């Protein structure tokens, strides 16, 4: 049989070029996205090395080391930023810098757990709903509609109120609220994908539903899922902070950014650092994830290709 591929028309021979490399090439060009990525990397490093950046301190009264963000010093309360306390101290004389640094761990933990769990449930629901349609779709989507009709924070308040405050319950509360987003996005993608000829082609060679969804459909909706997850991280961190702010989330003395805002709001007129730094941290992280998400959308969206 004649080989019609002798005529090589490309400058670069089409070597093994992974699609990730392609995405990264486009992502790199986007300055906003790179700034977002930079912020997120800083955040992750901060969380990992929190104990190095703000190491435990020796406490005289305790006679032992204790976390730096816990150590109180009432004589040095509400101190403005200085060489010793870069971000100043709060009303109990705790180092705000240490608290913000250690708070990143809680926020990231909440973010990742919430997004992973809600993504798993959302993707499964969305895929079933979109792929099978009919009654399954109707029932699942009405449930999702109901969930969407309740404001996210209200839903979280209700759940937190029912289950009680605390880190785990915050994650459950925020996670449930994040499921509809994933379910809808995946359902939408699946609906268009299942009509594609390559799905029919896979069927024609004998693929079962499990393989159709797992191998042919879901890998093709990874882009919207990744984008939703990135944006969802920002949303989850924000919701967790809001819950903590109204006292239903992570409880003091844990250095949660929202809880820190709540503690500090009584003093914020006279003493700005107590709200400025935790508030700024929340804003930076949310901004970072959103910028990253936007950049990923541009880099992953095949329609913008070339």
């Amino acid at each position, binding site marked *: 049989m*004649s080989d*019609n*591929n*002798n*005529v090589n*028309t*490309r*400058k670069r021979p089409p070597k093994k070029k992974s699609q990730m490399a392609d995405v990264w090439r486009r992502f790199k*060009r986007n300055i906003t996205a790179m700034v977002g990525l930079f912020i997120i990397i800083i955040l992750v490093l901060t969380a990992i090395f929190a104990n190095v950046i703000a190491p435990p301190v020796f406490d005289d009264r305790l006679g032992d080391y204790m976390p730096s963000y816990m150590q109180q010093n009432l004589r040095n309360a509400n101190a403005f930023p200085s060489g010793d306390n870069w971000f100043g101290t709060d009303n109990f004389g705790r180092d705000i810098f240490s608290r913000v640094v250690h708070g990143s761990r809680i926020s990231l933990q909440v973010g990742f757990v919430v997004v992973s769990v809600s993504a798993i449930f959302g993707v499964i629901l969305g895929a079933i709903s979109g792929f099978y349609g009919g009654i399954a779709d109707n029932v699942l989507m009405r449930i999702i509609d109901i969930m969407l009709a309740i404001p996210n924070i209200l839903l979280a308040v209700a759940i937190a109120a029912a289950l009680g405050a605390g880190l785990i319950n915050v994650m459950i509360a925020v996670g449930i609220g994040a499921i509809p987003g994933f379910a809808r996005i995946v359902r939408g993608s699946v609906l268009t994908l299942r009509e594609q000829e390559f799905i029919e082609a896979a069927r024609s060679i004998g693929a079962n539903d499990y393989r159709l969804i797992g191998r042919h459909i879901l890998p093709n909706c990874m882009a919207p899922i990744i984008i939703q997850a990135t944006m969802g991280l920002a949303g989850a961190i924000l919701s967790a902070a809001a819950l903590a702010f109204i006292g239903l989330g992570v409880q003091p003395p844990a250095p949660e950014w929202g809880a820190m805002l709540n503690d500090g709001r009584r003093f914020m007129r006279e003493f700005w650092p107590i709200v400025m730094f935790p508030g700024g941290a929340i804003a930076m992280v949310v901004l970072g994830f959103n910028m990253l998400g936007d950049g990923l959308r541009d880099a992953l969206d095949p329609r913008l290709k*070339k």
Partner: protein
Amino acid sequence: MTESNNMLEIKGLTIHYVTDDGVVRAVNDLNIAIGRGESIGLVGETGAGKTTTALGILKLVPNPPGKIIDGEIFLDGEDIIKKSEPEMRKIRGNKVSMIFQDPMTSLNPVMTVRDQIAEVILLHEKMPAAKALEKAEEMLMKVGIMPDRAKDYPHQFSGGMRQRVVIAIALACSPELLIADEPTTALDVTIQAQVLELMKNLKEEFNTSMIMITHDLGIVAEICDKVAVMYAGSVVEYADKLELFKNPKHPYTIGLFNSIPDIGNDVESLKPIKGLMPDPMNLPTGCPFHPRCDKAKPECSEKIPAGYDIGNNHIVKCILFNQ
């Protein structure tokens, strides 16, 4: 200014798309001329630069990334490359109009077809709105759509009927030049026959010059006076229709004819052109067709052949014809 009575004369047109990955040489040193009332078929495969040429004539090449690098386009003796955007806007839809390939997307879905025709008329001619609507209905009649459907929306029409509406819009201002970009590719054969027939008649009625962009040599045989065969951004062969169909010279043109299954004769197997269209970002040196050409000589890869006139206004861009 050139002294000629040609409706359109394109000289040395070169259009590039500058992208992050490299320069796409879409149109390279293209020369064609169209007389008044004449129709020319621009034939070629995907990526030959047919549509870019058409957009170039209207100065509608999306910029960025597209850019007219070089060349002159004389419309009625005036070089439109030098014209400003407001001047061009007066030309588009008035003196020159275009029919696009896809009748599904080239109409506005939320405007009635009558209003869409009237809009073009009002843009270019001073007349009361009521009169424009009247004229719009007249145009619809001309393309075979009854006035009782004038207030319908595009989605209420079939593909063939929509393309009729598009033709009515294109002809509403009695253009001197009509550019039709694959106007029947999206249509079924029996509908295509209707639309081609309609275009042929209207062209005569309005005495319009026409550029018919197509990949189908059958359509050219039917509707055109002259043919320009395009390959990789340049015209490789240019002649009167009869001359070209009876006496094709360029190896690419011959290859095209051999690739088409012939409905009149039985052939055991087709003789396709070997290989693929070149990547316009990385055109071969010399003659762009030489890697696929059976008659290629060593010098074909060295320099771009000029257009050689072999008599009868038959121009072939191939060094085999360099006497």
